[in-house]
């Protein structure tokens, strides 16, 4: 008990715990769509692209959240539009655009070396540096995302499972894809300070992939994913405190441990690999 309570004497630890809970929850709920719709590469790519937005905002002395948010949302919507009209595969488009945006971020950052320390928090995450204002922003954005997901629950379910029939019955499938991309962009921005650009994809994918192995129903999958996400955030943070390792990395490693545990315990006994291969084969033939 003492091991759990004593770190809370530090204000930074209390803030970090609140942030880990919020971020673990929102990432793992949005992550359900990321996993089921094969959007993990988009998630990873958007996280990298956001770096350019953050560096530009930094250079312009603009708010980092707002700068990163605008840039990431625009990139996400741009990708949605390009993939809809272009005949180049979505993966290729993402590979080209997002590495370019990341390279732009690195180029700008290397040009202004004295800012490097602060910006590195965004690369690898530093949840212990989160202040009161960050918490408020994270809480507000998380609440907004959860409200949208709750309101559009059945439409997002239908459009993700069977986009053609959903469209035929009047669900605005294309608009929902853009909504989901925007939600993904906001989720990534919310999580960057805690997990960092490189690891945020794991927060999106791992809890949902864990839940996927434990249930064959959508609602329970979302619930289990959220529990795994929040628990990984909290447990990972304590591990980070006691073993003196980077918080983002330790949260991701705890989530990964959950994933392997679920793989062993899975009633479905199917490996993630098979599932992902199946999903990829059937994926996005929306046209």
């Amino acid at each position, binding site marked *: 008990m003492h091991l759990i309570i004593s770190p809370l004497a530090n204000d930074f630890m209390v803030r970090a715990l609140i942030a880990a809970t919020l971020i673990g929850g929102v990432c793992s709920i949005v992550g359900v769509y990321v996993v089921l719709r094969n959007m993990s590469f988009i998630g990873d790519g958007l996280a990298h692209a956001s770096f350019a937005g953050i560096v530009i905002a930094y250079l312009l002395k603009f708010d980092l959240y707002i700068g990163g948010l605008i840039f990431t949302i625009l990139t996400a919507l741009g990708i949605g539009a390009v993939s809809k009209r272009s005949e180049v595969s979505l993966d290729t488009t993402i590979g080209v655009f997002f590495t370019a945006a990341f390279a732009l971020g690195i180029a700008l950052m290397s040009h202004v070396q004295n800012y490097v320390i602060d910006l590195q928090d965004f690369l690898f995450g530093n949840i212990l540096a989160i202040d009161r204002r960050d918490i408020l922003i994270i809480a507000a954005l998380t609440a907004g995302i959860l409200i949208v997901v709750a309101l559009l629950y059945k439409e997002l379910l*239908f459009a993700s499972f069977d*986009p*053609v029939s959903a469209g035929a019955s009047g669900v605005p499938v294309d608009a929902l894809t853009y909504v989901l991309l925007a939600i993904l962009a906001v989720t990534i921005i919310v999580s960057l300070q805690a997990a960092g650009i490189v690891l945020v994809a794991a927060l999106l994918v791992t809890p949902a992939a864990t839940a996927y192995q434990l249930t064959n129903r*959508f609602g329970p999958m979302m619930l289990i994913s959220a529990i795994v996400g929040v628990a990984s955030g909290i447990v990972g943070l304590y591990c980070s405190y006691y073993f003196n390792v980077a918080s983002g990395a330790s949260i991701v490693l705890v989530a990964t441990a959950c994933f392997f545990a679920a793989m062993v315990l899975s009633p479905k006994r199917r490996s993630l690999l098979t599932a992902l291969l199946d999903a990829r084969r*059937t994926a996005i033939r929306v046209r």
Partner: protein
Amino acid sequence: MKDERTNRHDHTHIAPDAPPQPRGHSHAVAPATFHLHPHAGHPHGQPARVPASDAAIAVDGVCAGYFGRDVLDEVSFTVNRGEFIGVIGPNGSGKSTLLKVIAGLLPVQCGSVLVFGQRPSPEVRHLIGYVPQSESVNWSFPVTVRDVVLMGTYGRLGLFRRPSDADRAAADAAIAQVGMQDYTSAQIGQLSGGQQQRVFVARALVARPKLMLLDEPIAGVDATTQHAIFTLLEQLKEQGTTIVATTHDLSCVAEWFDRVLALNHSVVAYGKPQEVLTSETLSATFGSHVLVSPVLPA
């Protein structure tokens, strides 16, 4: 059905190289050219909610496609109420595109589509049940048979509203109608192809459609299952539902469909199965090197 033979030459035109058919002949003249199908007078027929109009579907000079390329080129045909229509053609001939155009999923570049006399609209969508091509569905999705069938109520519910107990009861009734009640809690991906098709038909049925559009409903299922699916569709037809199904399997065409549309970007032929299933039409539709005799067992 014998009287339809007098119109044979209107229905069946083999014209891959012929000048374009006169536009507008189908829906403008349709009431005069086409007669009502015998089933249209069935006691169950003509439900009250359907607006008055002679044709279930009137496609007139439609061009449509993706990325500026037309997949459908001046397609015109009319489907009467209560008819069971088969659309045949090779892969990439525009069969799926045609269904999407009828369902209002894809805008037309030229021409017009009328479903029960109306242009595409949310009201018209509620009259249509759509069963998609199997590969457009994410089969690894964590949803059960009941979850899937319940999705059939979503369109009518509209945004933000959750399905009620009545909707759940309707879903269970539709599941029973297609004989899948023993699989209600099974995950959709664990079912066989034929069972999945029946579940998708059940989902379309929940919304009580007047028109069913099925994209390759018998692709990759065995002969017994094909028979079961067609028997189910035949029952729906007898209740007055108009049905359009695409297929590239010709073995079922003569037995089940009232009329067959041979499609290869444009209409190659449209008429009763025995009129369309000639070696001439089929080589014009599928290319000369393919099937010559459609009655050969598959």
